[in-house]
């Protein structure tokens, strides 16, 4: 009874905040509602007994993705009003597509049937005596270890990609070259000038000095 009540409560907040994300005119508020939505989805997972997914949702989406969104919204000068401009024009087409997708999903839900031998074929039945975080860990680090490692390679490729596409060598960066400094001699930098009385000081060109630096 309490569980049902909690389910409906959190689902309602989830749906309401999702609507607010789309309709809100203030982008910062929209992101905050998005975070609220993520938290409620995490609670729903918790109610369903999938605590690992709940934690991941909270840590990854609320902790990283949503905060990143918030940064983007606040740091970049994006004109959000102009993004909404096409909304009226494209709404009918979008609604049509949504309707078709909904009909398709309804068809699938209508004939929902699990293959008769499905549960017997299940590779890894859910173990009864441990929590699902433990069960997942046991699978990821044993049976699926190679895939786990390959996922690491994918992240490495993403990192290489980010560097390839954005990193530029700065030709004129001001880094310190200690050996060059130590190798300097007074002749390279010191200029002795004997200035005649009453004529001020005329400095000679110091180009040579800059080159050696």
């Amino acid at each position, binding site marked *: 009874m309490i569980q049902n009540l909690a389910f409906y409560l959190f689902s309602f907040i989830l749906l309401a905040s999702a609507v607010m994300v789309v309709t809100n005119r203030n982008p910062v508020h929209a992101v905050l509602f998005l975070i609220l939505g993520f938290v409620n989805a995490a609670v729903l997972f918790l109610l369903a007994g999938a605590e690992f997914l709940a934690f991941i949702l909270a840590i990854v989406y609320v902790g990283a993705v949503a905060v990143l969104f918030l940064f983007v919204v606040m740091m970049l000068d994006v004109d959000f009003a102009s993004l909404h401009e096409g909304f009226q024009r494209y709404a009918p087409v979008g609604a049509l597509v949504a309707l078709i997708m909904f009909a398709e999903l309804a068809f699938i839900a209508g004939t929902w049937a699990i293959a*008769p031998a499905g549960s017997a074929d299940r590779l890894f039945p859910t173990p009864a005596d441990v929590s699902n975080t433990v069960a997942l860990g046991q699978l990821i680090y044993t049976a699926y270890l190679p895939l786990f490692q390959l996922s690491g390679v994918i992240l490495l490729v993403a990192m290489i990609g980010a560097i390839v596409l954005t990193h530029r060598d700065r030709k004129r960066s001001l880094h310190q070259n200690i050996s060059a400094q130590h190798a300097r001699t007074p002749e390279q930098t010191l200029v002795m000038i004997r200035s005649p009385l009453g004529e001020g000081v005329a400095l000679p060109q110091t180009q040579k000095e800059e080159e050696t630096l």
Partner: protein
Amino acid sequence: MTDFYPLLPALFLGIGGMGLLLAGLAKANATQPVTLSAITLLIAAAFLTVTAPDAVLFGGLLKTSLFTRYADTLIYLGAIAALILSLDYNKREGIARFEYPILVLFAVLGMIVMISAADMMSLYIGFELQSLALYICAALARDSVRSTEAGLKYFVLGALASGLLLYGISLVYGFAGTTNFAALGGVFRQGAGLGTVVGVVFVLIGLAFKISAAPFHMWAPDVYEGAPSSVTALFATAPKTAALALFLSVMAGPFAHLTGQWEMLIQILAVLSMIIGALAAIGQSNIKRLLAYSSVGHMGYALMGLVTGTVAGIQASLIYIAIYVVMSAGAFACVIAMRRNGQAVERISDLAGLAGEHPGFAFAFAVFMWSMAGIPPLGGFFAKLVVFYTAFNAGYDALTIIGIITSVIGAFYYLRVIKVMYFDKGRPQFDKTSAGAGFVMAVGAFAVIVFVAVPGPLMAVAGAAAKALMG
């Protein structure tokens, strides 16, 4: 050790790629040595692959057989050709970055994982690894608007394709309760519900995106045109082979008993690809766009073999893709050699009068165009012949006739390139062809011409590979 032998090529590529990454960071101007080392690594991996035995690895996550070895070898060939072409081209274009050969190595690693996949999970991980590395390659010339546009377009549409594939896999898993290919095959022996069929269709669409079969080809011309030519040469060979091999192994593997559900779809894909490949290429004036549409058409012919669902059909597809890789690598070597005053030129009209100035170059280009058009006695003719023959024998008369008509229409634009080179007046004044491009051209042209004399070995290997796949 013997257990891990089939895994060695993958380990080699992965660890070698990371080692080269460190080496490239340690040394300035490392592009040339890193590229050469990557080529050496690929050759070594190819030898290890060819000598590896059949195996089921990691409790059914990966499975190697003659089929995977056949496809892997073609992928290595394509990647090696693309890297050889990149050696000189990337330097002249000012995009010589040592990360490029390393990204190619990781992409190849992803491809061999996805081809060897015997589980939906390893399939998807391999698929993502190769796609991600290729998106970056497409945007390699980051200061060129066209290249970044190509990278972004490829990324967005590729991500959509990945999403569709993943959604399909989740549906299949949801209805069957397993992601293992062998177990899925067992479940589907008893037929499948509507949900499974929807899942299979989504998987099929995701894969069709990757081989750029019509109507999921719209990204191909823009990406081929925008990406640097050395990268386009890679796109047209290795990933195409990988995606087609994956297509074959998924359709003939876990979904083999659902032939009734997917056969019609593959027929539609094949027919549309052939028609679009033939008609859309006619109006192109850019040689890279022309080759992009031509590759769409070629994928249509290669899919015809799969439609039959027989060992002979798979064999025909495998022969087709092998010859396609050689023709394609050679044709792109010719495109890369089209440079004037240090600038790459890409218009077909730039080729006018080529035969007078560079007879060897013009002849090689003509050989690839003739072969792609399917004119006897070149390799491309033979590939088309095998595909049409098996499709006709299996009773797909209409499909065969459409294939023949579209290949006749397609011959027009291939022959137009030859006409421009040999009969139009002009002075191309191309720069001296680089040694790498000349090498790929010469080897490709030789293989395409000589194939008719010794078709036996390829036929036999492709037949055995098809048998290994169908079980």
